[in-house]
């Protein structure tokens, strides 16, 4: 929330285009995200918001434009003045500072909650098992699940699974967290616990980009709300501006459904 002090954006996306076969899903997205900022992306289904999020850590390769995270161009590098595609390992290295939370949780089902959380710190970041375990237990405690460390994902409710997934993403000490519709697969009564966890993270100054349908979360936790439609950003601003006084008719129509 202390975005004012920072001057260079952590995420810089310029003129992002993305097509699947002949379907153009993103039609020129420009977005800067400052360190510590919480950006919530709203928009109807099929507006391209999840695709855009997945482009930021190169789960989808973009067709035009460029994305920089923490000063590094994602998926590419400059070599002798020419842009070169990165290999799998090069991309893997760039992703180490970006945490991601998925709609379907995607916990590793053959590992306990604790094992899920320590997997990347040990295997990708080279931490030793004892330190990783200590930190993982703290993280699980922070998401309110210290008593579930030894449970397998199948034994947890959806909300608990998603909170483990958040702890897992935090365990790599990310500079940026991406949330891809983190509550959309949850039963209504389980949404609250996940949103509470996310609000805490937002308050602690983590840089977050959140794709969601939770209007209430956007209003309370976002520094900035981005409204996407038809593969473009149609409106962007502080939550109260965009949500209370939407200027664009598409935004107005979208928000009207939640009143």
């Amino acid at each position, binding site marked *: 929330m202390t975005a004012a002090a920072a001057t260079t954006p952590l995420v810089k996306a310029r003129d992002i285009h993305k097509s699947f076969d002949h379907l153009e899903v993103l039609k020129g997205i420009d977005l800067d995200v400052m360190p510590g900022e919480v950006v919530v992306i709203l928009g109807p289904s099929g507006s391209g918001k999840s695709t855009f999020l997945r482009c930021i*850590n190169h*789960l989808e390769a973009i067709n035009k434009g460029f994305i920089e995270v923490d000063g590094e161009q994602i998926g590419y590098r400059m070599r002798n003045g020419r842009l070169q595609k990165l290999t*799998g*390992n090069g991309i*893997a*290295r*760039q*992703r*180490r500072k*970006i945490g*991601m939370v*998925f709609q*379907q949780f*995607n916990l*590793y*089902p*053959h*590992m*306990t909650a*604790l094992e899920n959380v320590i*997997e*990347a710190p040990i*295997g*990708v970041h080279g931490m030793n098992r*004892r330190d990783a*375990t*200590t930190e993982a*237990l703290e993280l699980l*405690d922070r998401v309110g699940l*210290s*008593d579930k*460390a*030894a*449970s*397998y*994902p*199948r*034994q947890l409710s959806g909300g608990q699974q998603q909170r483990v997934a958040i702890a*897992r993403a935090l365990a*790599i000490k990310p500079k940026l967290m991406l949330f891809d519709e983190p509550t959309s697969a949850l039963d209504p009564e389980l949404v609250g616990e996940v949103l509470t966890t996310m609000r805490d993270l937002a308050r602690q100054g983590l840089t977050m980009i959140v794709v969601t349908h939770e209007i209430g979360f956007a209003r309370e936790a976002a520094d900035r709300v981005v409204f996407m439609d038809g593969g473009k950003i149609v409106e962007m601003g502080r939550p109260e501006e965009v949500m209370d006084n939407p200027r664009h008719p598409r935004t107005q129509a979208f928000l009207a459904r939640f009143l």
Partner: protein
Amino acid sequence: MSGKPAIAPPSGGADPRDVVNAHAPFPIGRLILWAVTAVIVVDFGLIVARNENFGWPVVAAYFFDRTVLNGLSVSLGLTVVAMVIGTALGLVLAIARLSKDTLASSSASLFIWFFRGTPLLVQLIFWYNLSTLFPQISLAIPFGPTLASWETNAVITPVTAAIVGLALNEAAYMAEIIRGGLLSVDRGQAETAEAFGMTKGRALRRIIIPQAMRSIVPPTGNQLISMIKATSLVSVIAMADLLYSVQSIYNRTFEIIPMLLVAVLWYLLITSILNVGQSYIEAYYSRGERRDGAAAPLPAAQEASH
């Protein structure tokens, strides 16, 4: 059944419709079936035991015969070696076949097509007779100098012919089993591993393969049992496996049936042991599958939270 009252008398004023008071009807049909089956089994057992042509004393005498045990160890050794090589090569082929690289996927497909499409027995005889096709085996740079050269007959002994034949054939089948297993894992798992910065190799090893094992293990158990039996084919290339050993004995003694029974009992014994082993492995890889299952023991570091 008709003699009983339709409804049990109420006890302590309870509702007679309470399912707690329900009885199962007497299973008369099932008991008759059991009795008939038991009679048939005992009768069949007596027939087998009393028929002297089975030669049970001969079976007993040769069951632990040195030649038989040597043959058994050859069969088991061949199975293990061929299975290990076959599985390792099969994993490589499966990954190659799933690769986006056309060269890798088409070479793997070609391999699988050839080795699944020809009979194992023919392949074994083919490897055994490789020297007729290539009298010399050389290590050389294509169109360039030869680095080393061997007589094919020195390299392809019955043992190497058997191992190469069985392993390559097995690799083709294992490749398809492993490929099916890898495909059975939710696409989101690979994506998550990717998003967390894991390399492809680590994602396979830590995330994808452990989950794929659930669908790989049962057909692999099948393959292993097939393999043990398939080793009997190597007797045609004069490899002294279990079948070849009992044959060498009955060629001397003419006790054909008893000696075949020795082999049959050993094959059954080995496959039975493998079945038990397989169920343990399956239980291991389905951990985390049961909802009600006990949670895993916590590592020692965890104590403060309770």
